[in-house]
């Protein structure tokens, strides 16, 4: 590593922040683009599982709340792609890479949403898992990214509220409704446990080394378990993992090893809905092409 790069590394490891116009090592820029682009892709793809339920939402209020959440997430994607754009990769290129299957998006958005119970569990627990990662990004060494995270985290807190409200309403309902939530939790628990990634040591995680992330994967998962398992249990729901327990002495949660093969296969486009969702995104892009052409032609 050349001295300039070494000094940069020490600067970010000491809590220093970088602006888009500042000099930065190529490796740092490449890692930033990869990380932030995947975040943008996930926001954009993440609306598709929920979108399927807008027309089937049980009440008008729920339909509006779900639509608003979808709008929030697409807005997050727009803000995040702007950050990537300033780092040198145009948004058009990000979208091309996404629909061609070259780029990745988070594992949880490759799965089907079978019932309204899934909608509640996603908004409550998937958004909860996501907000833990995103809160840690408030301290990201790349300042423009850290700054937009404030607004994003603020909006995510509405999503968790909406999700919790959906879940609580179902849990206060009929046996069949309670069953919907339990079944959805059973379906989502595996992907949720994989969400924060394999328990690689933070010091070996290049995203942590550059202080793009401010916490290790396992820290995030522990935080999720600590914050949400008690909330799940208090509703009388069962977490589908017989080994899940908190060691009261160390404060550490123990659990069955998540299926890392499943994670790898899902994020490389082999999940149960990966191709269908990408097809839909491709179709949406083709269908809206005339709008972009018209608008850009008029502006030119």
């Amino acid at each position, binding site marked *: 590593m050349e001295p300039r790069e070494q000094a940069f590394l020490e600067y970010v490891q000491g809590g220093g922040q970088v602006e888009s116009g500042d000099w930065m090592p190529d490796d740092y820029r490449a890692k930033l683009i990869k990380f932030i682009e995947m975040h943008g892709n996930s926001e954009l793809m993440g609306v598709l599982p929920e979108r399927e339920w807008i027309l089937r939402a049980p009440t008008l209020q729920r339909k509006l709340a779900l639509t608003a959440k979808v709008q929030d997430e697409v*807005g997050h994607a727009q*803000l995040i792609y*702007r950050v990537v*754009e*300033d780092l040198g990769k145009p948004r058009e290129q990000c979208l091309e890479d996404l629909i061609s299957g070259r780029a990745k998006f988070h594992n949880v958005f490759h799965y089907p949403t079978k019932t309204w119970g899934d909608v509640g569990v996603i908004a409550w627990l998937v958004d909860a898992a996501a907000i833990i990662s995103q809160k840690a990004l408030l301290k990201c060494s790349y300042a423009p990214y850290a*700054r*937009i995270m404030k607004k994003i985290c603020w909006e995510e807190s509405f999503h968790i509220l909406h999700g919790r409200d959906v879940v609580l309403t179902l849990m206060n309902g009929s046996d069949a409704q309670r069953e919907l939530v339990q079944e959805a939790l059973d379906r989502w628990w595996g992907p949720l446990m994989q969400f924060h990634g394999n328990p690689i040591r933070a010091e070996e995680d290049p995203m942590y080394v550059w202080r793009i992330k401010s916490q290790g994967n396992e820290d995030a998962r522990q935080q999720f378990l600590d914050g949400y398992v008690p909330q799940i249990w208090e509703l009388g729901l069962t977490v589908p993992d017989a080994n899940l327990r908190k060691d009261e002495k160390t404060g550490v949660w123990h659990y069955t090893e998540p299926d890392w093969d499943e994670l790898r296969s899902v994020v490389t486009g082999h999940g149960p809905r990966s191709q269908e969702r990408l097809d839909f995104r491709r179709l949406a892009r083709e269908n809206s092409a005339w709008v972009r052409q018209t608008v*850009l032609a*008029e*502006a030119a």
Partner: protein
Amino acid sequence: MVYEVFRQERKGQPYAHAGAIAAPDQAFAEAYAREQYGRRGESVGLWVVPRQAILEVHDFVDELERNYHRVDGYSLRDKLKEARERARTAAARDR
């Protein structure tokens, strides 16, 4: 075209940078800025500025060492000590 958005949270507060949006023209820029930074009532005002219109200034070199602009340009401690000393001896002499 990229627009930088500044938002004011409450009347009387400074406009602070909120983020950037990409828009083909001013009408879209306004619509996007409203949606991104105003739809939950989190702002009472927005400034939407084309990025090219912003003049950036970064280097602040004090070539002339104009320390009288800074607090460290004034070391009152020793002078105050001396002044007090003189006042005391003068008072003693006049007695």
